[in-house]
């Protein structure tokens, strides 16, 4: 995914400006020359300056003028789907793991990821279940990570 440097530079200028605006309302510390606004303020000012240089440089120097271009993967539905499945799968885990529980959400996302990566249904199923059980055994039983039980809470052991 290629984004033209002039656009990215502008995004950094905007982020820097927003941070400068936010820290302008931070309080001063009594009896001190430096408050909580100082450090992020200097960094944000740097971001504005460097982002500005990036934008100007990209406009002045010769080079590609296309503002936005998707990668080679955009021409392959399977690869695009695989990439999308990673983002949606991680988001689904973040949102639903507590409600559904690890032993339900993990094999689901693994199964979808395997399929999206082009693995056969049978292998996907076996790998998803085995990986979930091994991960659960290592992290929950072995290392004591309290992976959520969710719907299976009454069966917790």
């Amino acid at each position, binding site marked *: 995914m290629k984004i033209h440097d002039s656009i990215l530079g502008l995004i950094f200028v905007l982020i820097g400006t927003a941070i400068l605006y936010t820290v302008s309302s931070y309080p001063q510390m009594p009896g001190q020359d430096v408050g909580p606004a100082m450090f992020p303020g200097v960094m944000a000012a740097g971001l504005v300056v460097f982002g500005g240089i990036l934008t100007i440089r990209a406009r002045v120097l010769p080079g590609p003028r296309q503002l936005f271009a998707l990668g080679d993967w955009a021409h392959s539905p399977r690869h695009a789907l695989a990439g999308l499945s990673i983002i949606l799968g991680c988001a689904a885990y973040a949102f639903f793991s507590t409600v559904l529980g690890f032993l339900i959400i993990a094999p689901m996302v693994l199964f979808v990821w*395997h399929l999206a990566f082009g693995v056969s249904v049978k292998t996907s199923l076996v790998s998803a279940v085995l*990986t979930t059980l091994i991960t659960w055994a290592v992290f929950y039983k072995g290392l004591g990570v309290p992976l959520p039980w969710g719907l299976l809470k009454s069966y917790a052991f």
Partner: protein
Amino acid sequence: MDAMLLAFKMVFNVETMLIIMGSSIFGLFVGAVPGLSATMALALLVPMTFFMEPIPALAAMVTTSAMAIFAGDIPGCLLRMPGTAASAAYTDEAYAMSRNGHADTALGSGLVFSAIGGLFGTAVLILAAPVLAEFALNFTSFEYFWLILLGITCAIVISSDRPLKGAIMLLGGFLVASVGMNNPAAFPRFTGGNTDLLGGIGFLPMLIGMFAASEVLRSALDRSPKAMIVDQPIHNVFKGMWELTVKYPIQILRGSVLGTIVGALPGAGSDIAAWMSYAMSKKLSKEPEKFGTGHVEGIIESGAANNSALAGAWIPALVFGIPGDTLTAIVIGVLYMKNLNPGPTLFTTNPQNMYAIYILFIFANLIMIPFGWATIKVAKKLLNVRREILLPIILLACIVGTFGMNNSAFDVGIMLVAGVVAFILEENDFPVAPAILGVVLGPMLEENFVKSMIKSDGVFADFFARPVAGVLGVLTIIAWTYPMLRILWRRLMPKEQTA
């Protein structure tokens, strides 16, 4: 002496040995699979170290990184795809050797001279770190402030061919580090009222997102055709190694010295050490015309350089808490997690910990030889591992590892955002390493600046008052202004000449 005995006991016990063996296999596997980097191996390992004692945790980090850097040579040699960035410098050379029927010599050189380079770097670490630590005991916040600034300047100028983009990433890292209440004023910054952000943006979720999840995403979207393994038999990889050692002693020494120095510079790691060393080897060789045709000389020199850089990077990390490269940035995170806060006092208060680290480095480089030999034996099977099955498993490990640190689904969200942002920025040639340096060094820089300002009562001239601080300050200012002066000089020179 008691401390040394204690250190031996800390390393040579069943738990640590088992962890070293497991980490060796893990590091060799991740390093050998193209697309999975040494940094990814360490990032995935950090959640595990959370549940270990300090020395076993460090054993895991040292062993995994050493093994992964060597194992990166294997796919480079047989597939023309470097397993890690540190092997990229001599991948073409090693592949050409394989095609000429010398895969065993290429792999053997990678293995043996990596171990020699690693041991050389360790020797420098053992000799230099305590001396530097004694010197650094007198450092105050002024010296640390300038040292950090000089370090990050080096990181931007040396480690990136695009200093402007590197600087932006560094500032981004600093800003991420300033989220939350972890600042000298304990004022909640950029939290937006979200209590999850009061403690700041977790280092680990960011790390796993930037170095593991983003790599999985990149691999998932990669449409390049599967590389073909060179169909050449691999016999005895140790055959002819003694002859090569006798023939190229200067190259081995030069690669090890350069690697250690480059590794010790903040921001420059094994990959840059290997590139510089390969270039130097070619330039100073008696047979430069043979380079690129399958000549072992460059592999010997840069193979020694990339592993010696690993130990070199630990010198500023342990003595000053300033990471020499991305791998040591992760290690510093683990050191803090284990209450082994890096700094000169680490050498004086608990010397047994330092001795244990030295022993670990020596041991890891020695066992690299049998473990590496075994990996080369099964290399062809390893390279045929089905990445479409492996990648989802790695992704689940990323999620569970991230979740396991704080039992927080919010951290999984941070990991995802960090992974996607790192992927997009890397696609647009922004180096990711400066961002992680910014995250590690941001709080240190702010704390030392505020302390210095309070001590000096706001008088900035005091930042140059102490001799070492003054020298470091001047060096930093020169490093900042040098690129601008060079540009000015170039613009002025033609005018003078034409006048």
